[in-house]
């Protein structure tokens, strides 16, 4: 059925899937880790190779459609286009780094841990590449199930409750999505789940409104944007750090991706009707989340709330429908993943070395570990989008779009950026500067592996910040297709 390996999308699905299943049969922890590294690096290699074969020139290499359920009208269709490339690249870069950072002897049954992580990678790549709504839905869920188990088995004290809340929330969202997909399927007229058929479905305005609502709720819960965010801080805090990295770095992009790939092209009338309201609610939520972040004493919660604000900005950018904002947000999805994972890596190192997560109980790390501090400062600058960092490029373009849309909304959103400087720099000051306290008195410098991971991440921050052009070339064509839909209306 899926015999072919002569194309990139199929390889990107099968490699993590095979590695994940294989991992369950490896007894030793070292072996499992090596296995995970090998398969995640192989995916990275495939992805990097694919960058040299653009979708428009090498059609056969980048798009496949296997026969799956002809009776139902669904085929196993995958595509590697610009939008997919940037998110796929993020995925295959993050996973090896996450694996690298998993400490030895931390998690019992490590082979299962790595196996489930690889299955998550498979699910995520599948979501990004699917060109068939049913396949999209299956991967959407497939990415969720392993994360549920990862967090519930290896998470913190309140893990079962927090993870379950997260699961029920997103599952309810996906059920709405399912109803939307089924209704669209009946409206295609051709009885197909294909992306193109969905784009061409004939819907009345009322139908568009309803369908928009169903899809939007699913994506909004996943992102999450205000007011659907209540599962998020707890889930981030209770999940084991490697899972938190995947959750916040990649998984939340599923929602944004869904908006770009499915929502905007399918329901133009509804988007035009509701976008102002949505943007206002999201931007209000951004400011709200930023204020909460200022009062957080836990590093993990601070990053979680900061993430709500950043994701909110991207979501708001998507609904402005402006060319600049959508370009910016597509790049920013990549940047945000890199930045937040860098922050998590630092937070994880601090937590492992001191056993403390409270900001008020930390201080003076800069004296003990200058290199770590340097990395953190770079990541923190990226988090508040200073020039020369990647986020500056992305967020500037989103703000440009917001400003074109409604200047006062851009001003309100700008408030959240100022607030982000407040809490981020506050955290840096309290944790890293000042006199060392009891918890940090024996703090040591990071080791080589941690240094390597942080070098890669901060390196990417600067590369994109200084020279974003290749990334824009990557996404230009796909983003253009989305924007053009709205030029005519």
């Amino acid at each position, binding site marked *: 059925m899926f015999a072919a390996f002569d194309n990139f999308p199929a390889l990107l699905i099968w490699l993590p899937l095979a590695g994940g299943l294989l991992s369950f049969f490896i007894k030793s922890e070292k072996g499992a880790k090596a296995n995970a590294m090998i398969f995640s690096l192989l995916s990275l290699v495939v992805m990097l190779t694919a960058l040299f074969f653009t979708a428009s020139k090498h059609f056969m290499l980048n798009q496949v459609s296997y026969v*799956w*359920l*002809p*009776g*139902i009208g669904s085929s196993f269709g995958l595509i590697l286009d610009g939008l997919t490339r940037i998110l796929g690249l993020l995925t295959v870069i993050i996973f090896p780094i996450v694996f690298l950072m998993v400490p030895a002897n931390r998690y019992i049954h490590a082979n299962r841990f790595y196996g489930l992580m690889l299955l998550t990678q498979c699910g995520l790549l599948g979501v990004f590449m699917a060109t068939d709504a049913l396949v999209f*839905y*299956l991967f959407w*869920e*497939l990415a969720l*199930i392993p994360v549920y*188990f990862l967090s*519930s*088995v290896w998470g913190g004290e309140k*893990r*079962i409750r927090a993870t*379950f809340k997260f*699961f*029920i929330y997103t*599952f*309810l969202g996906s*059920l*709405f999505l*399912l*109803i939307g997909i*089924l*209704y669209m*399927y*009946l409206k295609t007229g051709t009885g197909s789940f294909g992306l193109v058929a969905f784009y061409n479905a004939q819907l009345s305005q009322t139908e568009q409104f309803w369908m928009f609502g169903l899809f939007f709720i699913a994506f909004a819960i996943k992102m999450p944007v205000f007011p659907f965010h209540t599962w998020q801080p707890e889930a981030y805090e209770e999940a084991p750090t490697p899972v938190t990295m995947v959750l916040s770095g990649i998984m939340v992009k599923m929602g944004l991706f869904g908006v770009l790939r499915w929502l905007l092209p399918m329901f133009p009338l509804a988007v035009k009707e509701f976008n102002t309201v949505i943007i206002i609610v999201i931007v209000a939520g951004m400011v709200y989340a930023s204020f909460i972040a200022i009062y957080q004493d836990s590093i993990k919660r601070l990053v979680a709330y900061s993430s709500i604000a950043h994701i909110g900005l991207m979501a708001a950018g998507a609904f402005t429908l402006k060319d600049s904002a959508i370009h910016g947000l597509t790049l920013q999805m990549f940047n945000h993943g890199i930045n937040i994972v860098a922050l998590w890596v630092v937070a994880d190192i601090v937590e492992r070395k001191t056993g403390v997560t409270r900001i008020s109980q930390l201080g003076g790390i800069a004296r003990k570990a200058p290199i770590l501090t340097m990395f953190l400062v770079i990541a923190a600058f990226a988090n508040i989008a200073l020039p020369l960092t990647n986020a500056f490029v992305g967020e500037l373009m989103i703000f440009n779009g917001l400003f074109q849309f409604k200047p006062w909304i851009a001003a309100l959103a700008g408030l959240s950026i100022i607030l982000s400087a407040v809490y981020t720099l506050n955290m840096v000051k309290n944790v890293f500067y000042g006199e060392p306290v009891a918890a940090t008195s024996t703090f040591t410098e990071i080791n080589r592996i941690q240094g390597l991971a942080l070098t890669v991440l901060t390196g990417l921050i600067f590369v994109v910040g200084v020279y974003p052009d290749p990334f824009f070339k990557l996404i230009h064509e796909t983003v253009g297709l989305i924007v053009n839909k709205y030029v005519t209306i």
Partner: protein
Amino acid sequence: MNAIIVAALWGVLMMYAGFVAKGRSTNLLAVTGVIVLLVVNWLEYLGLSIFSIDTKGMLVYNSFGLLFNEVILFATLMYFLLSGQELGKSNKTPSDLYALIFFILAGIAIIAGFKSLLMLFIGIEIVSIPLYVLAGSAKTNLKSNEAALKYFLMGSFSTGLMLMGIAFLYGDAGTFFLEGINAGMGIISPMKGIGLVLLLASMSFKVSAAPFHFWTPDVYDGSPTVFTSFMATIVKSAGFFAFLKLFESAFGNIHREWQILMAVIVFLTLVIGNVTAVFQQSVKRMLSYSSIAQAGFMLLGVFALNVFAKQGMILYFAAYSLATIAIFAVLARFKDDSIESFNGFAKRQPLVAISLLVSFLSLAGIPLTAGFFAKYFMLLAVLKDATMLWLVVVAILCAAVSVYYYFRVIQAMYFKDVTADQEQQQLPEFNSAFKIIILINSLLILALGIHPDWLTNLL
């Protein structure tokens, strides 16, 4: 037709086998019987009828009926393989119980092909009467006796309703044949209306749809777990098949008239089943309510009555029966039905636990399991006609609720540790044959979840 005669004869054979065969050989004989039934039924599906008896058109088998029967027989095979050991322990003469099950299978085979209300009645009674005996088969257990009596009284009452309904319909149309009742250009005479409502009530009773579900938790909870498993899966599926076929063939023309009644029943069943299941502490009782909740989803098929409904129904029978049979087979080995007794189960029995995991995921309708596509078809069936779409919203909200109680068992198995006093308790033992079969069972659930076409294309 093949299946009725072979099942009936095999039932008689099982009765006499009690004189000679003991223990395992009884089980073996029963398994052989089901395999023979599977083969002869499949032969009929392929067009090879061994017995040709003129029923004056009262029994006609089409591919839907035969496929349904095949699924039911396969579920019975799984049931015998997984629960055979427990079934053997439950009684001194298990061959009697096997004989009763074969008679039930004969009844189900009649239901698979009824074209006349008489045959429907006979089929349902042949299924019901042995069930009353099975429910009370733990003769020394008071709860089992209570369950049997309750089931019998309530069952007789609903049978009465059904007979009365049939009488009214006969009075209206002058025939017992479904086509004859369906004729009449979609006009409802008072007599036909009364008959329809009576049949709706009695069929709802048989499939434990709210508000006719009150007997279900007590009967399912009180009966020996092995037979609860049989009642909740195979017999219930048969009830649904009869329900769907009766309302499609006899009342299809006036579909729009009774759809609103059906919608109310679906709504009540979904909400009551799911919400009550949340509060259960015993897995067995939780599964009783879950069976009501799942019935709500299957009723969506009867509500919609289109091509998706039929495909979904067949898939639902398979998905629901396989998953529930596996869970009950494991549950029957536990001394205690509480959710806590599953604590740490994954560490002690990883293979059985993963099979249970697949079964629970399937019941919850998670993708890549058969349960997902079962629900998928049901939702699609309702969406297709685009009437009363609020039912779809109710259904998915209920599906989200159902995740809560199914996942409680998963959480107990995988995330919770054994408590101190549980460690001293005797653990259920599973031999390797059981492990292999339950694993095959879960692989089948996954296979149908990845490729439902394999089953639905046979329709």
